[in-house]
């Protein structure tokens, strides 16, 4: 066989898989301490119980308003729109503290994470003034209207249609998996404004700001495995959308949505959904005096992975803060992070002999039950992991 010569490595040809590390400014320690103290007070007063996957399931409007009063919503929104003009890293610290505590953040989640930044980038002045102050106060809630019955990760296949009419558009079609639509005030709907062109699948899509109390909007629950009502099907029957609620540029919906997804793929919610279960697991083990080598190593592996994921996620947040959009790194965080959320579930099952109990009010058994029943969603939402790996492969030059 012909010897294969040693070549100089092509390591430099690989794209950046993770941005440079971020060191949080020392000043953030005070903010973190404030948030922890607030959460301690809340738990002391039994205002809510820590749960797993709170950004989907923990809908608590009074909690959202209390966060708003503290200035911890709309943190990166400029003050002229009712926000607080703070940095993305400051917001990151508040967010990760809330998730780690298992606090009920679902009501404001989409509005604060996604809609606020999108309105700032693509919204009209009137739209910003109409929605941003309420988002920052924790009083205005949003959903996301991307998926459809036949469109999962393949968003280019959406079929909801908007037809031009006098002074606006008429929408017909169906959106699914809309978290919180039954409580939310509005959502962004991705719809076809031009007929589908198979040669340019991503063209002709636009976004609309749909107020969910508009005539012709019908909201139907899609119960989760737990029986809880978070998801909805949202049907449009000839719903009128005024021109003032066209969001961004007509026909540019695909680019806008892709930009929004970059924000949502790498946040701490991608590895902290089951963190309250991990903390409870460690508490159970420590309380039972379980510190044998096997236990230490298994727990250590979970914690080393958590620490690493946080470093990766912070690195992406730092890059976003400096105006970059590290799409590849964000996809990798979501892939690793959401698989990690599942690993915690298995470790908790196997390390502690307490069966899951969906009827329990709180504690390990309840956290485990919720985590098991919510786990299938972790690697689906925000684009399935398999599709994200395709994005990574393309980024590495394989497609």
């Amino acid at each position, binding site marked *: 066989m012909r010897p294969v010569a040693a070549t100089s490595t092509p390591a430099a040809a690989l794209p950046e898989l993770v941005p440079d590390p971020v060191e949080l400014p020392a000043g953030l320690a005070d903010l973190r301490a404030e948030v922890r103290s607030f959460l301690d007070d809340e738990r002391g007063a039994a205002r809510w119980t820590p749960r797993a996957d709170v950004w989907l399931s923990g809908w608590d409007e009074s909690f959202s308003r209390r966060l708003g009063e503290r200035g911890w919503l709309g943190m990166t929104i400029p003050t002229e729109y009712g926000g607080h003009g703070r940095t993305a890293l400051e917001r990151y610290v508040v967010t990760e503290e809330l998730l780690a505590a298992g606090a009920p953040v679902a009501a404001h989640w989409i509005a604060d994470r996604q809609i606020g930044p999108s309105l700032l980038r693509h919204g009209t002045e009137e739209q910003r003034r109409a929605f941003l102050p309420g988002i920052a106060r924790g009083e205005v809630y949003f959903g996301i209207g991307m998926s459809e019955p036949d469109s999962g990760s393949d968003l280019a296949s959406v079929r909801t249609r908007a037809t031009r009419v006098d002074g606006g558009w008429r929408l017909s079609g169906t959106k699914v998996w809309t978290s919180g639509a039954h409580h939310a005030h509005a959502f962004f709907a991705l719809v076809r404004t031009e007929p589908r062109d198979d040669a340019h699948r991503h063209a002709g899509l636009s976004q609309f700001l749909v107020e969910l109390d508009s005539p012709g909007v019908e909201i139907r629950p899609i119960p989760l495995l737990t029986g809880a009502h978070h998801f909805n099907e949202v049907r449009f029957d000839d719903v009128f959308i005024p021109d003032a609620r066209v969001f961004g540029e007509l026909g540019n919906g695909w680019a806008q949505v892709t930009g929004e997804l970059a924000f949502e793929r790498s946040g701490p919610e991608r590895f902290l959904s089951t963190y309250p279960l991990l903390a409870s697991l460690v508490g159970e083990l420590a309380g039972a005096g379980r510190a044998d080598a096997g236990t230490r190593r298994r727990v250590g592996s979970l914690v080393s992975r*958590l620490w690493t994921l946080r470093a990766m996620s912070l690195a992406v947040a730092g890059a976003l803060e400096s105006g970059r959009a590290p799409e590849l790194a964000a996809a990798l965080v979501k892939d690793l992070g959401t698989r990690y959320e599942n690993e915690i579930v298995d470790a908790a099952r196997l390390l502690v002999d307490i069966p899951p109990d969906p009827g329990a009010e709180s504690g390990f058994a309840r956290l485990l039950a919720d985590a098991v029943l919510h786990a299938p969603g972790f690697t689906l939402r925000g684009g399935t992991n398999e599709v994200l790996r395709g994005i990574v492969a393309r980024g590495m030059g394989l497609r």
Partner: protein
Amino acid sequence: MARNSDLADLAASILAAGSDDRDGTGLDTAAWKACAGAGLTSLTDPDTGGTLDDAAVLLEVAGADAARLPLAETDLLAGWLGRAAGLAAPDGPLAAVVTDATGGDRPAGTAGGTVTGSGGTTGTVSAALTRVPWGRSLAAVVVLDGDRVLVLDTGAAAVTEGANLAEEPRDGLTLDGVTPLATGSAPAGAAAELTLRAALARSLLLAGAARGALARSVAYAGERTQFGRPIGRFQAVQQMLAEAGAEVAAASAASAAATSTARRAGFAAPETAFAVAAAKARCSEAATAVARIAHQVHGAIGFTREHALRLVTTRLWAWRDEDGDEAFWNDRVGAAALDAGADGLWPLVTGRP
């Protein structure tokens, strides 16, 4: 922290030249001279103006290019120990050895051994040292023996050659009645700091080797055709390589974050001990997955001696165990987590601020 891309380019230009040493497993002498000439062998010496961050950049490149150079041993370990004890060491490749008499909780498989005799300015010592990295090629070895530090000239040592899985020298050195080149007092906590420094350096090398293995695999998947198209066009192969990409990103992020913690807080800080432990454990875990995928993508040619892939994958296998495998370091992380309990776990993970 902006990583030093000029330094990375310089290091890559020196190290990428020729890593495959088919006939021997010795030091890449030409590369060593080039590195020494460019100041790359003493980056963390405060007198040279370098930093730990610079050393980290160099080690990642050295790992990716399978450099046959004791850069970490010379600079981060022996260089640091000598300086900390106020001792000068000769120019050239160095290694640090912590003797069995020093005690401490050290991982298996690291350099060790015994020293007898008084040393000092007049006395002589005898030493039996094991698993000394690059022992046969060193200018000197810096030995931590209890609370003293000795710089021993290895020129007169009897060498028992040994190697790790990557054929990197891990030699036995025997010295009989030699006068130390220098003797001094060890700083407090030296053994613990050496363990952390070695684990951090190894994490960076692992992150580099993982990146090297992925890069070679991506390139190969773009060239090798089967069933009429490059194997990289197959979804199954893409999924594997993306999974490897996630592991490489994790190793890189973990080792970089631990470096940044060590630079900011120093090696004596508890948060550095935690960060380095987590990083080495994570990098060792990543090594297994990346090496497995790299070989699967390369097919049969990849596990022959004919192919250069082995230069990085054998390093992944050797280094994942050296300076503490994931069981050793996860044990420490897990103990800290159980100690912190349910309420203390999150502050432990987030550190400061």
